[in-house]
């Protein structure tokens, strides 16, 4: 045990300060996509919906409905359309109501309407 005690002292503190202050390791985490409405057309939106493996994206008229809860941040949509989709960098996504997790992204790209 003394051995372990010494190890612990030598090792020091590694505990994160989160939530008091942000944690640097969060930058590496995969995060859901953020869309650029003005780069989104219906065709592109449909392609994104096809690409998404977890039914997180559906198109309703000129609105792309994005279910953050269903999103696994797999990044397929970003690969499909790097210009229109980027990582949001958000990992604090807990919601107290599933409705808060459903986002409506307007399709403003030319040719959208």
């Amino acid at each position, binding site marked *: 045990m003394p051995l372990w005690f010494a190890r612990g002292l030598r090792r020091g503190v590694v505990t994160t300060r989160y939530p008091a202050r942000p944690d640097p390791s969060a930058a590496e985490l995969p995060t859901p996509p*953020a869309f650029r*409405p003005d780069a989104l057309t219906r065709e592109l939106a449909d392609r994104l919906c096809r690409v998404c493996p977890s039914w997180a994206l559906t198109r309703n008229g000129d609105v792309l409905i994005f279910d953050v809860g269903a*999103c696994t941040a797999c990044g397929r949509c970003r690969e499909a359309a790097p210009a229109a989709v980027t990582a*949001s960098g*958000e990992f604090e996504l*807990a919601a107290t109501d599933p409705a808060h997790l459903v986002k409506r992204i307007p399709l403003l790209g030319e040719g959208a309407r």
Partner: protein
Amino acid sequence: MNPASAAADSGKPAPEASPALVASTAHEASTAETADALRHSVSRQFGRSLHIRTLDTGSCAACEQEIRLLTAPHYDLHRLGFFFTPAPRHADLLMVTGPMIRAFDIAARKTYQAMPGPKLVVATGACALGGVYQPDAFTHGTVGETLPVDVWIPGCPPSPLALLHGLLVAVDRLAAKVRDLTFTRNGGDR
């Protein structure tokens, strides 16, 4: 959809309906209605200490690994007043992972019933939120189908930081910021 109504009316007392289970759905509905009030009063209800029981309803074991890491030195859940307890009898909060396999209904309901009120349910991970599996003969697709969920934590798997945030939201010590996010380029990243 509101979880309460989901639990109540879609609380189609799952295939193996026994009187106890039907009764419990009504019970859950009532608790779920008061869930918000409960979360706001939670610091009064539980002081600053809360005991957590986890429930795996078909996860891929990654969510379990992340939950185990919550007590690791890097995150040290205890400093925030959360503790894990193996006995649902002592648990205030139920962390549910996985898409709620139908074969698991009995166990899930028994675990929930075994918890004393007031109690919270946290759906953890994309499976639990309907991301990976569609409802079918094997799974309900989401946890909300069977249990009255109070907090939803997305992510596949949700990182320990995301879990910490979710737990703090559950006890109302942090605000759920996701409602204000738009996930459009100019709204997504501040």
